[in-house]
């Protein structure tokens, strides 16, 4: 369901260094409204840093980021106002452990959006229902499974009414049997037309749900296209190598540094 229209997220010539370590080396990326883009790549490729630059959790060294027409990287921007429009889901869930599930959803609405108690509670209940956790409303995060915590975290972000959702390896910290529930919620959001940028290792999800897949390596975008192009028929050697190792880790050879052992990946 690739929608057309103005880009919701626009990244221009983005650079980010941590000290001497240049993690992003010039990224250009556009994500249209309603588009679901999966960012894949080996660890250390800069994909999480790119995602965190979109809502300025990391300050870029150089370059610009626009979300919904507002320049996020403008030093004078009201960053708190911009972030209200951008939901973020973390690998480690980051629920507030001292608050119940419902309070996790209502406190940000009340403190940030100044919604009154009744409205915040209503929106919280509706979003918990959406992720299938209405019966956990009064539980505390520590009593929930990882998959349930992550769904609550998604509901918490949704309760703020974001235009864009960022997912930073949302299933990487989960036991394998719990991954499906979280992916199902993300698939539902995609079907509803949410603009989503997802850093993930779930190739099945990327193949089936994403409109576009972006492969990053060494701080640059190597390949950008439909899932069929990037995952199905990658044109770059680095992409093929990465995918073959991901799809069949047991087949990887002990290698020097030259990546020519992955001919058969397709």
């Amino acid at each position, binding site marked *: 369901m690739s929608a057309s229209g103005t880009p919701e997220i626009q990244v221009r010539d983005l650079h980010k260094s941590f000290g001497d370590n240049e993690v992003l080396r010039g990224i250009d990326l556009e994500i249209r409204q309603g588009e679901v883009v999966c960012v894949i790549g080996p660890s250390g490729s800069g994909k999480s840093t790119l995602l965190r630059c979109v*809502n300025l*959790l990391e300050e870029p060294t150089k370059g610009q980021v626009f979300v919904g027409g507002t320049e996020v990287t403008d030093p004078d921007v009201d960053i*708190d*106002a911009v*972030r*209200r429009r*951008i*939901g*973020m889901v*973390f690998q*480690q869930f*980051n*629920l*507030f*452990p*001292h608050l119940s599930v419902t309070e996790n959803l209502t*406190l*940000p609405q009340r*403190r*940030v*959006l100044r919604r009154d108690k009744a409205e915040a509670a209503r929106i919280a209940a509706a979003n918990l229902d959406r992720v299938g956790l209405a019966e956990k409303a009064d539980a505390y995060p*520590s009593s929930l499974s990882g998959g349930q915590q992550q769904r609550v*975290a998604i509901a*918490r*972000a949704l309760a*703020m009414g974001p235009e864009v959702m960022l997912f930073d390896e949302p299933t990487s910290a989960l036991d394998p049997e719990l991954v499906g529930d979280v992916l199902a919620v993300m698939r539902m959001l995609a079907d509803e037309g949410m603009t989503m940028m997802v850093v993930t290792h779930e190739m099945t999800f990327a193949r089936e749900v994403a409109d576009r897949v972006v492969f990053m390596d060494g701080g640059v975008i190597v390949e950008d296209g439909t899932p069929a192009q990037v995952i199905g028929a990658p044109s770059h050697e680095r992409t093929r190598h990465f995918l073959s190792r991901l799809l069949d880790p047991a087949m990887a050879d002990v290698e020097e540094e030259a990546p020519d052992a992955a001919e058969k990946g397709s």
Partner: protein
Amino acid sequence: MSGADTQVQPRRSGLTRRQKRALSRGVQYAVFIAAVALFAATADWARLKNQFAQWDLVQQMFPDVITLALKNTVLYTMSGFVVGLVLGMVIALMRLSPVGPYRWVAGIYIEIFRGLPALLIFVFVGVAVPLAFPGTEIPGGTYGKVALALGLVSAAYMAETIRAGIQAVPKGQMEAARSLGFSHARAMVSIVIPQAFRIVIPPLTNELVLLFKDSSLVLFLGVTLEERELTKFGRDLASQTANSTPILVAGLCYLLVTVPLGFVVRRLEAKAGEATR
């Protein structure tokens, strides 16, 4: 061949390991029993009873020892604790500030007040401040002075405890709050500090116990009859009557509070240990 022989561990005695262990235990018990017996035999029991267990003196101390002395001790402690907590919170936040001078001031404060004896602070507040700034009056009389002196001392310790607590809250909590649109200050107040306080409740309770004991230093400020706390109360009566019973009673009154508090601290620590996911 003789070389192989010397490699074998030589037997030092004919005892097995179990026998050696039993012997060692036996010696330890014997030493303990001998020490107790020696004390019991040599102590002048009549004199000790006379000095520490004068029942009529005990009766004479009640109810004042509770209604006046213990009450004042608790009052001094609590007021010092509140001042210390507020000041400690401010200093902890200064210590974490991105503004250099705030960090330096907080660091210097902590180093100074952790390094000085509490007694010196009491003398400073009680004597030096009135002399240095004539006409200034610390509000609340003795109570105000004690609150200030105890607060100044405990703030340094509490600031370090609270800072450690804030830093122990995972970074992801701040990031999650910021990503939802919280400002830094609001995220601190609503998300980070409440969690930090849960972490520091056991060490802060411990600090309360220390303050409870330090409140005895009020002795050096010169207090009226009505302002006496446990130590002063016990000492006055002990010197009046040339008998140590009041000291013993005052000591027991301290334990009445510190022992249960210590128990609470251990419970809280055990609970906090379980709660860490």
